[in-house]
């Protein structure tokens, strides 16, 4: 039983795990976008996440490509799919393909999770968060 539980704990410690620490920063709600317009922009995604709607978007930015996901359970996942080519292979290995998961309260999604690299990550879990937290010493 203990071993089974430990194995399960290891599995859930990965990217799929969600933080029970609800976000405490109040964030002004953004009006919901039209349901009929495909959501491919940050503002649209932020609004959908704020409503805890099920949505996945991949956005190419100046620094690289990110995938953002929100769910009806108010779980946000951010994946750094790829960095743009000028970064060193070592930094790319640390960050590409890594993700983090953050749980929040409906109506209080922290837009900084989408609009910045490190804003709001204190409430997140995952390898992307851990490596960002380590790399900040070099900033």
């Amino acid at each position: 039983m203990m071993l089974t539980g430990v194995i399960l704990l290891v599995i859930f410690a990965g990217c799929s795990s969600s933080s029970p620490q609800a976000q405490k920063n109040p964030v002004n709600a953004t009006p919901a976008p039209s349901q009929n317009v495909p959501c491919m922009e940050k503002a649209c995604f932020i609004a959908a996440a704020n409503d805890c709607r099920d949505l996945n978007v991949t956005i190419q930015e100046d620094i690289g490509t990110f995938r953002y996901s929100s769910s009806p359970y108010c779980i946000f996942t951010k994946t750094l799919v790829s960095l743009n080519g000028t970064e060193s292979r070592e930094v790319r290995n640390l960050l590409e393909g890594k993700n983090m998961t953050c749980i929040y309260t409906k109506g209080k999604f922290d837009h900084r999770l989408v609009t910045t690299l490190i804003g709001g990550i204190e409430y997140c879990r995952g390898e992307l968060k851990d490596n960002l937290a380590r790399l900040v010493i070099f900033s």
Partner: protein
Amino acid sequence: MIRGVLGISIIMVFFLVPVAAQTSPSPWSWNNYMGTSYWDVQVTENEASCGGGITTDTVSITISHNLDSAVMGNVGHGAAPGSFISNNILHMPSRTVSDPPGSSTLSAYDIFFTTDCGAFAGKYTWTYHGPDGYSCSGSTALSGTTSEGCPGVPVIPAVASGTKESFVAEIASARTDLNEDLMLRYYQTQLEDMIFTIDRPELTINDPLYQRNVVWAKDELAAATDDIKQLEPAVEAKYNAILDKDPDNFWANWDMAELKKVQGNYQDYFSHTNKALGNKDIAKKTQKLVKQTVAGGLGLSEFPTTDNSYFIRRMSTDAAAIQSVYGIDVGKGEADTEPLRMFAFWNQPFDAVNVVGLPGY
């Protein structure tokens, strides 16, 4: 007291080798000793991937013991500081050393002492980085022996209160207990995550395995929470005893900050962090140490900087614009130690505490 330590050791973070299981009780514990031990060490260097071969030499070294911490003399990569993670296991953190004309990054490793004080063994890997971009890896195995036996007086010699030695001993003792608490807190968080994920009617309603695992996780969580409730007042009392004598002490404030963070007391977390960073010289030296340790732990051959990395440049811009963390207005720190302050904001508490080392390093 620590439940599920095996689970923690699988998950545990990267700076330090996961905590090894406790050895069975022995009549001698190196982590209770203050003094010097003397060793002959067989050093086996494997440089095959670097165009060399496998060589073995014997060197005579001393180890300077200070209860939970020790410094091992030079076996080829300079003197090495470490911390005892159990009675007779000395953990050496990863570090980068000058290795002219380049540098070498050494992995973290453990030194295992026998309980009769007659021998120890350990092994680490290293990667050499040359100035022209060349790199290669190898390993160093250590096998130490001594005919000195266990030191005659195992008890901690009395030291005058208020001396540097007594202060280091107090910090080391408090940190040992804090590390135990932080492991429990980490385990607690992992269990809460697991329960949040699987304790859903749509998953458990027809699946006995999910139901059993929810029950197991909740039982473990209750036990870990009880252990924390018993342990934390004693941990706080140790740090408060140090802070009563030295309210601005860097290490006591730094450690207490992480304790407050896991308790969710963010105002006190920032208060203690700011007090620690008020020791500007120590903070600057610590920041330099943390950079080296992080670079070594991440396998970086050079520091990424705002000059050579667009990602770091963007991160620096974002960090400068951060106004609140944990819902608290963080203001602006001192420019030359701001990276250390932000490192403390977001890193796992166990890493943040142990990466700064003990006084004197």
